[in-house]
């Protein structure tokens, strides 16, 4: 019973009028558990080729946080998508990025967005940033059965804490473990390389523009060494999804502004390599 929520008499069933819960996920678990990603009947163990989403980076700056994700999804050695989007607004003051099984991850994000909006409508107020991070944790934990079969979803959550007036980042493991990260973090197959890059480029007191640049650099570094991470596609003009979350809310960096950042990063790297060749450090 999922498509038509009404009872035979046409009146709203009791699950709808039961007071108490402000959680959409709890309501689904009561009323339509088959709609929850983690509540499907157990599947036989086996390998199915499914698209995987890869690298997400996030870093804090003065007055907020930046999140960025590359645009590639892979299926084995094949590129399944070159323009998938993996960074989403969770609500007005937070962003969620996903790595892992793309289909499940997108579903988890959709449910998470709805969970936050549902709470806001019923309670008339926003959840605290920690509250949001904990809700996501519960949802990832519900997916543990699928994760053990190789269909893991690993999100990265970042938002602007209205009480503290600062950007914060939360990472997760497949068991739903929630860890607060300071300064910067990265998840997905290219995260090792992105993290190295972030470690060198991040510094206290960055402004939003500088932080966007650092995020793009980290993704370019990840794409350099990880085949599952896509760098900026300059011929097709497909740039990473980059978003800032500040006191003013979630804001996706525009295509043109991002194009300029990408061009700058590329120009700097071209110049670096040209210098290296000229100085004879590069045998080419």
């Amino acid at each position, binding site marked *: 019973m999922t*498509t038509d*929520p009404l009872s035979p008499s046409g009146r709203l069933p009791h699950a709808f009028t039961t007071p108490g819960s402000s959680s*959409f996920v709890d309501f689904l678990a009561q009323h339509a558990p088959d709609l929850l990603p983690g509540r499907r009947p157990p599947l036989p163990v086996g390998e199915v080729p499914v698209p995987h989403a890869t690298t997400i980076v996030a870093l804090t700056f003065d007055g907020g946080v930046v999140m960025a994700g590359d645009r590639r999804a892979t299926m084995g050695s094949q590129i399944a998508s070159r323009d998938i989007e993996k960074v989403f607004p969770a609500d007005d003051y937070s962003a969620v990025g996903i790595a892992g099984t793309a289909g499940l991850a997108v579903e988890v994000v959709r449910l998470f967005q709805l969970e936050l909006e549902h709470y806001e*409508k019923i309670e008339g107020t926003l959840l605290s940033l920690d509250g949001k991070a904990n809700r996501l944790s519960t949802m990832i934990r519900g997916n543990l059965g699928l994760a053990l079969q190789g269909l893991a979803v690993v999100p990265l959550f970042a938002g602007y804490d209205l009480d503290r007036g600062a950007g914060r980042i939360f990472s997760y493991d497949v068991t739903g473990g929630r860890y607060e990260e300071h300064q910067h973090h990265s998840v997905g197959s290219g995260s090792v390389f992105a993290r190295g890059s972030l470690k060198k480029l991040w510094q206290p007191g960055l402004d939003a523009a500088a932080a966007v640049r650092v995020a793009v650099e980290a993704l370019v570094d990840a794409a350099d060494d990880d085949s599952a991470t896509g760098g900026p596609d300059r011929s097709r003009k497909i740039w990473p999804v980059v978003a800032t979350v500040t006191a003013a809310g979630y804001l996706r960096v525009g295509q043109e502004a991002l194009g300029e950042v990408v061009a700058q990063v590329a120009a700097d790297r071209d110049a670096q390599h040209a210098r290296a060749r000229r100085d004879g450090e590069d045998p080419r």
Partner: protein
Amino acid sequence: MSMPFYVSPEQLMKDRADYARKGIARGRSVVVLAYDDGIAFATENPSRALHKVSEIYDRIAFAAVGKYNEFENLRVAGVRYADLRGFSYDRRDVNARGLANAYAQTLGTVFTTESKPLEVELVVAEVGDDPATDQIYRLSYDGSVADERDFVVLGGQSDRLREEIAGAWTPGMPLADVLALAVRVLGTPADGAEEDDRRVIPAAQLEVAVLDRTRPRRAFRRLSGVVLEDLLAAGTPTEP
């Protein structure tokens, strides 16, 4: 053995309807008016937390009068209904008509099968891309639905307030004018009182919200504080 008294169905329904009507008439009215960029809701409500007007979904809002616990329960059910529908299909597939039907069935079933009818009157409104596609449904305690146009008044003296609005409302009015009209009408003196008794309700005592069709996704917005005061000051109150 005592025989239960026979009560004719007509009498039974009439008693229930009278009971519900009395409960609803005690509350303060809510007025719902269309304006050029959407639909406005206004009521006298000193509480900042216990709302009579709320958001249900992207383009859909809910307004109610009557017993708070009863309409609050229906509001939450409506949010769950809309969110479930939007999650199983798509956000665009949630519409006011489906929600109004679900409410109508619920109110009707309670009215005929339970010992006490719900003492509520509701409006479910959906803002469209242009004024012609706006939808306003008014639902009564017995489950009857009316598809309304332009403006609706819920609660106590709804017939009198309706006449007041009908004399002054015109299509395509801007928000400030519609709100000025709404506030004027809400201050209408009780039946039989002098016109001089008309009250001017201050902004702090008003609950005002709009479904603004120019907003990208979630059209619902509450208006309060300075924003509301400025709007009320800018509006030209239309004399009926």
